[in-house]
């Protein structure tokens, strides 16, 4: 059992591009759920549009990457408006169902053979992200690694995560500033008692819509980072469970806190990769039953995602405020 490898892998996942993507998605979700109380279960739809908006602009239309990114984010604004106008007045559970459905509709359409000329359909789309990597200040090369042991990144990855964590910091700062303002206090009052906010003359619908747009754009940014990281997008990467992972990260760190989503995303990937690495090591030393340790079966991934489900249940039951949260800020007894 080589724990240095396990911890190295876990640390790499915790600070790598996946954690950046999850952190951005969770920051967006925090605006929706943590501060406004919107049960958005279609967060992955925003990530999908961010990723595909960028990829399609560059790969299909041949535009510059710096045009593609705003296009992706603009699509997220459009999705928020299209989703919000009909559904923000619904009960919380119905809103949850609609948002899941909407994200699935997008994934099915973008991943269909009919869309093959535009989005690559069921095949993944790939584009040239050179415009981004040309700016890379880190030295690159087949042997160049930054870090120690398995906790190491290539020059390209270093550039992605440098920009990525900067975006995370900026998004967190932006959320901090807007939530601290009078506008943010209205959001929280809507979360705590929608009717009270309404009776004070606040336009609840409009505030919810603004929150949906802001959180959606931040999630779209997560999609953009994902697209740049892989130089493309694949419809299978945007299944509903991505949204559930985002909830897990948010609840783990602490909903309705400024640093909660970031801590949650880092911990989520650390624990997930730790478990997977640990299981791989167990399998290598033949301490697992054959059916589970078959190296081709990818069972460690299956188990770690199952653990996410278990973690969600336990978190909600025993520590709904997460690591840094405040229990009174949680949506405990909404009808």
């Amino acid at each position: 059992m080589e724990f240095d490898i396990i911890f190295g892998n876990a640390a790499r996942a915790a600070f790598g591009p996946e954690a950046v993507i999850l952190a951005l998605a969770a920051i967006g979700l925090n605006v929706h759920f943590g501060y406004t109380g919107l049960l958005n279960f279609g967060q992955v739809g925003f990530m999908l549009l961010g990723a595909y908006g960028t990829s399609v602009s560059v790969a299909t239309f041949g535009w510059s990457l710096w045009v593609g990114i705003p296009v992706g984010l603009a699509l997220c604004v459009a999705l928020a408006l299209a989703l919000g106008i009909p559904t923000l007045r619904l009960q919380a559970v119905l809103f949850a169902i609609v948002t899941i459905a909407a994200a699935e509709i997008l994934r099915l359409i973008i991943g269909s053979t009919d869309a093959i000329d535009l989005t690559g359909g069921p095949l993944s789309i790939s584009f040239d992200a050179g415009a981004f990597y040309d700016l890379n200040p880190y030295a690159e090369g087949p042997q160049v690694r930054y870090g120690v042991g398995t906790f190491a990144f290539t020059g390209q990855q270093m550039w992605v995560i440098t920009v990525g964590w900067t975006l995370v910091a900026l998004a967190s700062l932006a959320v901090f500033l807007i939530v601290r303002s009078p506008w943010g206090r209205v959001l929280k009052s809507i979360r705590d008692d929608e009717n009270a906010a309404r009776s004070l003359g606040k336009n609840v619908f409009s505030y919810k819509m603004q929150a949906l747009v802001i959180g959606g754009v931040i999630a779209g940014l997560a999609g953009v980072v994902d697209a740049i990281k892989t130089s493309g997008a694949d419809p299978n990467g945007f299944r509903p469970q991505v949204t559930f992972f985002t909830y897990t990260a948010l609840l783990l760190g602490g909903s309705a806190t400024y640093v909660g989503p970031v801590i949650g995303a880092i911990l989520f990937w650390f624990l997930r990769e730790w478990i997977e690495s640990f299981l791989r090591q167990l399998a290598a030393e033949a301490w697992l039953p054959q059916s589970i340790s078959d190296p081709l079966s990818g069972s460690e991934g299956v188990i770690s995602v199952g653990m996410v489900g278990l973690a969600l249940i336990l978190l909600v039951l025993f520590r709904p405020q997460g690591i840094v949260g405040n229990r009174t800020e949680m949506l405990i007894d909404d009808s």
Partner: protein
Amino acid sequence: MWRLMRRGTALLGFVLCVVFACVGPAAAQSDDGTKADQDRADQDHNTAGDSDGTAQTTLEGTIRLGFDRYIAGVEITVTDQAGAEIGRTATGAEGRWLIAVPDAGTYLVTLDEETLPDDLGLREGQETTVETTVFAGMARAVVFAVGETPKTTPFGERFAQRAFTGLKLGMIIAMSAVGLSLIYGTTGLVNFAHGELVTFGAVIAWYFNTSWGGLNLVVAAALGLIVCGALGAGLESGLFRPLRRRRLGVFQLVVITIGLSLLGRQAIQLFFGAEPRPYVDYQVQDRWDFGPWAVTPREVATVATIAVVLAVIAITLQLSRFGKATRAVADNTDLARVAGIDVNRVVLIVWTIGAMLAGLGGIFVGLDADIDPYLGFQLLLLIFAGVELGGLGTAYGAVVGSVLIGFATEISTLWISPELKFVVPLAVLILVLLLRPQGLFGIRERVG
């Protein structure tokens, strides 16, 4: 009440046996095509798309119908944009073809439709020539969507056939939806893990059908349903009843069921595997011709069984003491409690029956398409659509809504590509929420 439930279980098992017995033994000669769900024909992308490390630039693909019919001898031609031929090949035994191209660029790939077997053709709207771009050193997969409905079939006949498939899908959704709707009605819980109950039923029956004794599917299904019922009862008494006592909010409950859904699906995948697998029995059957309909005996059995089960449920809800108690609890739990109804027992039975119905739905899905861990989750959104269309919390509404959703889903494939058919119910779901949030049969409630 326990006696009543036992009687209900026995009745269900009996109905199943009778209907399956009518189906008769499996006939061995004819290949039944509906088994291969058409929309899977297009999903053979990733296997071909991965580059294996060689730097050769290739175009490749697999011509197949679903997962069980790979079509050999189909001629594929690749030309460059100027029209010069780069290569020509025919698909091999596993439907595979591969043509190396000299350079990155855009090429035209043409499938010779004449070389397809007579009963197959490219799906409507599909061109025989596809333009594709390949990057240097990459393998680019090219998809030709092959369908089995020949274009010569008259529209009326295709409509009738789709309508039957839609009815079958709708009834499967309906059966699963009744449980979801009753659970919501009696406890206010929207169970996102209901899809995993569906999968669980299909998978448990598969084990009884194969590795745990190789029982006949009818027996395996009956045993599987007992396990499903036990699981439902266990979830209620072990998890959801204690949770109700803690008076959790909507959000907590939704997230807990989502967590359960993830946990359940992954557990199933860990033991069952991700590969789709079929049942052993009733796979190859001769079709019966009824005018415009050509249906397999197992499809008739599916529809008939579900019709009987739903009728039994309706009669039980309407006439029996348990049914009245259920409706009373759904109407007003507190009033029901002061009227002397044992609410927890009613909910326990609702969970047991709901889980059995979901499991039976899964078995019927598995009978027609292979079983995989995502089977139930895919159905879940359709179940939501059906329940919401009918009106959340109304059992009869859920049935009508689900059947309509089934029709809409299948009939839409007359005009749109089958892989997009699941967009239809989701779009209906959103439209209903927009225009009539209480559903067709629900009572309007003012929100916000």
